[in-house]
């Protein structure tokens, strides 16, 4: 398995190189001049030219590219003109927020969708199955921005249950001690109950909002792969041995039905990172989504390139992890 992992890691290098080149070229080819955005509307042409020189944008494209690669090799991912901070510090402060939101929404999706999928599959064509189908359909169709605004309106504005949609923790609390950057985890680790309560309450609505689409997909996926599995010989054998129904479903059927679900889950992670843009904007969640949108609107190249690169690394990593977990679930899968 070690050799397999190593091989996969080496295989990532050309993929990442390709991504570096494509992102670099795409961000330059698209219209929009960062110097104009930075100078402001009232600045005369000389100022724009001066800024362009300061940013190195007056140089030929290949020189800009080699400068960029040179910086990358030194671990320098650039400066974000539209926030006034280095990209590294921006990413360090924002990535954990998005990771936390994404993980929470995956967790919620899994906790809700897998049981729903199992129930729907074991009670096929029953009332519960139809209900789950309707909910999956709604979950897959409802636009996130609408759902988010509705959540805020109902739970914050009318009922007053949810905290103000501003950030990850109440303004009167300090963020928990920085260990992982995930507020919920950090407050558990540091035993900070005040921060835990506040960060959980801030996380809940955006995470549910973000999870709806994934929830629907996982529920349908679990249902269909369960249906495939429950008709197979080994399930029949398990039943014939006189095992309890719960053991048949959970130990024999579910474990075998999880492989396709897991694959979808891995793919959903990347999708959720992208989908977080809208959720983050609506809930003023200080994550990476809004940051990247702003960078694109401001034609700020460095953060766009850095984000794409980091996401690509993350995505490759998740896919590898998913592939490795297959082996845990199904011992028949071997890595060579």
């Amino acid at each position, binding site marked *: 398995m070690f050799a397999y992992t190593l091989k996969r890691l080496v295989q990532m290098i050309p993929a990442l190189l390709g991504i570096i080149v494509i992102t670099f070229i795409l961000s330059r080819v698209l219209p929009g001049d960062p110097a104009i955005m930075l100078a402001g509307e*009232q600045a005369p042409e000389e100022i724009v030219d001066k800024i362009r020189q300061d940013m190195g944008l007056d140089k030929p494209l290949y020189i800009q590219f080699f400068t960029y690669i040179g910086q990358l090799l030194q671990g320098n991912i650039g400066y974000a003109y539209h926030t*006034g*901070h280095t990209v590294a510090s921006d990413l360090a402060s924002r990535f954990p927020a998005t990771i936390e939101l994404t993980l929470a929404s995956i967790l919620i999706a899994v906790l809700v969708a897998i049981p729903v999928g199992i129930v729907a599959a074991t009670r096929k064509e029953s009332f519960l199955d139809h209900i789950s189908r309707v909910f999956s359909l709604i979950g897959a169709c409802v636009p996130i921005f609408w759902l988010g605004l509705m959540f805020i309106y109902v739970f914050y504005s009318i009922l007053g249950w949810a905290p103000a949609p501003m950030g990850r923790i109440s303004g009167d609390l300090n963020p928990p*001690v920085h260990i992982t950057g995930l507020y919920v985890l950090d407050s558990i680790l540091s035993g900070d109950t*005040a921060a835990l309560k506040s960060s959980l309450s801030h996380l809940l609505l955006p995470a549910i909002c973000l999870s709806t689409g994934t929830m629907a997909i996982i529920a349908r996926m679990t249902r269909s792969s369960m249906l495939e599995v429950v008709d197979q010989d080994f399930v029949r054998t398990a039943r014939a041995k006189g095992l309890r129904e719960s053991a048949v479903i959970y130990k024999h059927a579910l474990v075998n039905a999880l492989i396709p679900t897991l694959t979808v889950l891995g793919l959903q992670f990347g999708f959720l990172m992208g989908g977080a843009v809208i959720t983050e904007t609506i809930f*003023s969640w200080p994550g990476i989504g809004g940051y990247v949108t702003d960078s694109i609107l401001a034609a700020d190249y460095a953060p766009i390139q850095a984000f794409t690169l980091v996401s690509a690394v993350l995505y490759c990593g998740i896919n590898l992890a998913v592939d490795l977990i297959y082996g845990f679930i199904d011992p028949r899968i071997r890595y060579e």
Partner: protein
Amino acid sequence: MKRVKLLSTLVAFSVMLAGCASSANPQTPAATTAASGTTGTAAPAAKSNLTVAYSEGGTTLDPAEANDLTSDTLVLAAYDQLVTYGIKTENGTSIANTEDIQPMLAESWEVNADNTVYTFKLKSGVSFQSGNPVDAEAVAYSFDRVAKSSSGSFLYGMAAIKSVAVKDASTVEVTLTNANHNFLQILAMYTFSIVDQKTVEAQGADYLKTNAAGSGPFTLEKWDPATEAVFTANESYWQGAPNLSKVTLKFTKEASNRVLLLDKGDVDMAIEIPPKDVASLQSNTDLTVASNASNRILFFAMNNKVKPFDNVKVRQAINYAIPYDELLSGVMYGQAKQMKSSVASNTPGFTDAGYVYEHNLDKAKELLTEAGYPDGFTFDFTLGSGFDDWEDDAVLIQAELAKIGVTMNINKLARAQFLEQQKTNNLTSYISKWTSFVNDPGYHLGFLLYGKGSSNYINYSNAEVDKLWDEANLETDAAKRTALYEQAQEIITTEAPWAYLYEYNRIVGMSNKISGYAFYPDEVIRFYPLSITE
């Protein structure tokens, strides 16, 4: 078995981590106030905290580089300038009077006979937040930073500054290339904030991008463009400690959320309120909505060098075809004012002389026929993204023009692309907003409608207007100058290089507990005069 082992290792590891970390928040309610950080010490004044919702997080704290609303606001909270604007009261509301220049860090100033040398005497005993004295050296250093900056240096040129000389520790002499009536108004801007030279030199060149080193009323505690900026009162401020002990700017992009937060009382103040939400906020008796006429204008620009807009009659016809009332009530919900000159109506020297346009399709049709387009024509219109009202305006205008046979093709562009395209001077027509930082017709027209104006993207050129502007620019007598600018405005209005749309209101929603709010034409809120009662 293997999995159990893995799990127990993980648990052991996290317990170990937990052992190292102490909690960042007090765990018993009693300890909350005592440990809530540095601000906790000023217990009696602790209630005077102000929270304001902003849409953007700002891009820099460097006064010489700041050129967006949030950055400017942050700069003005932390820095002082040599001079500042006076305040006047109009219909019970406080409004900055940009023509009335008041001393700030400068105690007094003298001007030589031909208005080219200004000698500023600094107030004595004023120090920066670091404790360093505010001296002539710091002033010269700050001006020099503006001259070398990317964003602010054009203002240095606009102010016509030739050189800055330190006469003694508290005297600075600024020499201009020529007499400039806007000089003091420009000095009052955030760009010309006086920075603490010693601190900056000790901390390095990039320090001011993310830190403040001023003599202003508030000390920056935290600035994270993703979430919030926090200021605490500078208790030893030379004008007296501020009424507010803490100011927090919360960055909330979604406009509907800013409205909700204000409505629920989770923020005390919110800016950039959508016009459609004003009525619902006004129905909340705990809130006041300040809606002031700003000098931010919106106009429909037509390229004067491109057919058919090179014909005056065609441009006038467009002016007659715009459905002004629908734009004001339907798009802006009454939170805007009809624009009647190329200069905003609250700019000193404004005149609506020559303004005859009202929504009249027959008149428009007649003018088109006279211009040789009895069956209308087709043209391209470029719509920059980012402003909801622009899109509505464009669609309404398109529908109205269709009635006189004119087909307007709307091409949408992202803001960055739009600005790039606009700079080529080749767009046929577009909508654009403009706010003149310096509330003066000379500044305003010099950019937009002067033949060589750097933002004259529609190639408007009229020898008479240029001559009037040149004369006015050198005229030192205010009344004569105004008369020249009035003539220029009348010619422009008659020649109609733009169709005037509306002047935006500056809408700020705030709790009734807030007092001391004044409106400034640059739309930046000054926190120092504000106070909040519980």
